[in-house]
């Protein structure tokens, strides 16, 4: 604003205009020079490889042929995509990925919102509690995935020990290797995809701190006057939440939902480490990995990855449409 005020509007003296012009051009050149190392690294290490992956997805390439591989040559074919569309494994993985992303994201947001509302007002030890609640998000995924694996283990896990000794389960439940279990409530048995539910629960637990952090930041920036006024008017806490607080949070919640959906859709580590993609938990990312390493089929793995990229491109457009004008990464 200050810079604009300095510049007199019509008609600018020729000399001033030229000075401004060179200044702008100098800024532009400096900007490009300073940003270019970052752009070069990103183009060489991300953009070009991704374009190459697109080419690979139209070729029949096995890993063993790599040494002889001609980078752009070779025959182009739709075989990989053809294979996918007709593969029940692919459709199954797609279904799991969507369930995992939607439910994992929802769980993380619900937990994060609850935690943010609880920790919002100050109390003794609040800073410490806030730090503790962020731990699942910062801790190495390898370590926490294995803790969950041991916790849920049928032989030596704490959960099954409590279940069989205290809650009266007939037998330990193999939470991470059981594809389908049954829950009986009031005589009615319902089939549940046990392992898939467990990885979703893990995802919600691991990611809720992210939602918590952003919702809490937004809550603390909210003006207190509105709530005070509602209170004076006799609004109860739940009414204040529904009509005053929640509407102010919808923006940040929508943002978290889009970001978390994208990241959960991409997630590989969590499922690979917990179940290895077995017991009905195969998702697109673990399928890409197994095509690449176990089956040595580079072309097919690239095709699955390209499908993921297409879905994410759509999500990216959604993100830009709703949040682009804010020009922020978070």
């Amino acid at each position, binding site marked *: 604003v200050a810079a604009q005020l300095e510049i007199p509007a019509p008609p600018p003296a020729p000399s001033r205009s030229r000075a401004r012009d060179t200044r702008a051009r100098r800024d*532009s*050149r*400096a*900007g*490009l*020079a*300073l*940003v270019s*190392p*970052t*752009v070069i690294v*990103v183009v*060489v*290490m*991300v*953009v070009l490889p991704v374009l190459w*992956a697109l080419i690979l997805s139209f070729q029949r*390439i096995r890993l063993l042929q790599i040494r002889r*591989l001609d980078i752009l040559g070779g025959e182009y074919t739709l075989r990989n995509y053809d294979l996918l569309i007709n593969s029940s494994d692919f459709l199954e993985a797609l279904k799991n990925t969507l369930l995992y992303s939607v439910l994992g994201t929802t769980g993380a947001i619900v*937990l994060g919102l*609850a935690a943010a509302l609880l*920790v919002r007002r100050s109390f003794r030890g609040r800073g410490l509690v806030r*730090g*503790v*609640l962020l*731990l*699942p998000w910062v*801790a*190495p995924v*390898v*370590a*926490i995935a*294995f*803790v969950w694996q*041991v*916790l849920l*283990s049928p032989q*030596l896990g*704490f959960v099954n*020990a409590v279940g069989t000794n*205290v809650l009266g389960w007939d037998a330990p439940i193999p939470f991470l290797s059981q594809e389908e279990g049954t829950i009986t409530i009031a005589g009615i048995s319902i089939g549940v995809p046990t392992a898939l539910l467990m990885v979703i629960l893990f995802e919600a637990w691991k990611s809720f701190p992210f939602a918590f952090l952003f919702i809490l930041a937004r809550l603390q920036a909210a003006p207190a006057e509105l709530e005070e006024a509602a209170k004076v008017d*006799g609004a*109860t*806490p739940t009414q204040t939440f529904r009509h005053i607080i929640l509407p102010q949070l919808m923006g940040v919640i929508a943002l978290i939902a889009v970001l978390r959906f994208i*990241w959960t859709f*991409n997630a590989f*580590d969590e499922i690979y480490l917990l179940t290895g993609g077995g017991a009905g938990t195969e998702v697109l990312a673990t399928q*890409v990995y197994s095509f*690449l*390493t176990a089956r040595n089929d*580079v072309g097919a793995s690239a095709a699955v*990855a390209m499908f*993921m990229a297409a879905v*994410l491109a759509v999500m*990216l457009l959604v993100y830009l449409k709703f949040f682009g004008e*804010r*020009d*922020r*990464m*978070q």
Partner: protein
Amino acid sequence: MRGSRRYHIEVAVLRVLRPLGIAFFVLITLFPFYYMVLLSMREISEVIESPGQIWIGIGEFTTAAYERVLKPTSEGGEGFVEFLINSAMLGVATVIVTILVSILGAYAVSRLEFFGKRAVHFLFLSVYLFPPILLAIPLFVAFSKLQLRGELWVLVIVYIAQTLPICVYMLRNYFETVPVSLEEAAEVDGATRLQVIRKVTLPLAVPAIAATSLFVFMIAWNEFLFALLFLVEERPNWTVSLGVSQLTNIETPATTLMAGSVILTLPIIVLFLFAERLMTEGLTRGAEKG
């Protein structure tokens, strides 16, 4: 009158529920970490015998699992000291290059108008949000072809590319809190652009740079997918994350796995508690606006 009774009931209920809710969240976040430490210090035979016991009896305490994890393979251990050194070197190298490059980029994005700025923004956002597994395929194939796949420095380059965009944005968020007038004053005094960055902007942003460095270090330390794909056949180059993930064969008891997990987690938690406030502020700045 009824409204006010409902008000009092709700307030009373919430007064009870709030501490319970906070306790619930603290419990579900801390318990797995407590369990990790607990198991790493128990005998495996005792864990199998009484898996429901969540304390260590007097005289049951053992550090055998840690000894096994840390001892070199030549002495029958898992050689984690070597992995710790690898991870630390990988993290430090990634941090140094990423921070140096992104300081320049962040300054440009926060201060200067230049041609293609929108395209650059879009590019960074895409990298931030696109699936790493997609990138893994061409990089895996390319570095296999070049026969460089098992090298640690190759992984450094991959990590730099992955962390640069978020790093530029974190630093930009901080730079925008440095008043432009200070820089303009220096420019009037005849300082060049790089001198302005070095003498005015950077000293004010030291805490921010420290926090961003720690964040990048944590990403590099925690990373698993690329370490797995690139290094799994090169045991001497394993990172701690990869080392722990390879402890899952049948002969390795769960207590050893948990000791490895503690060794993997502890440095990150210490770093995080050290810089929590700065790091989270850098991430969420902008979210406050709605």
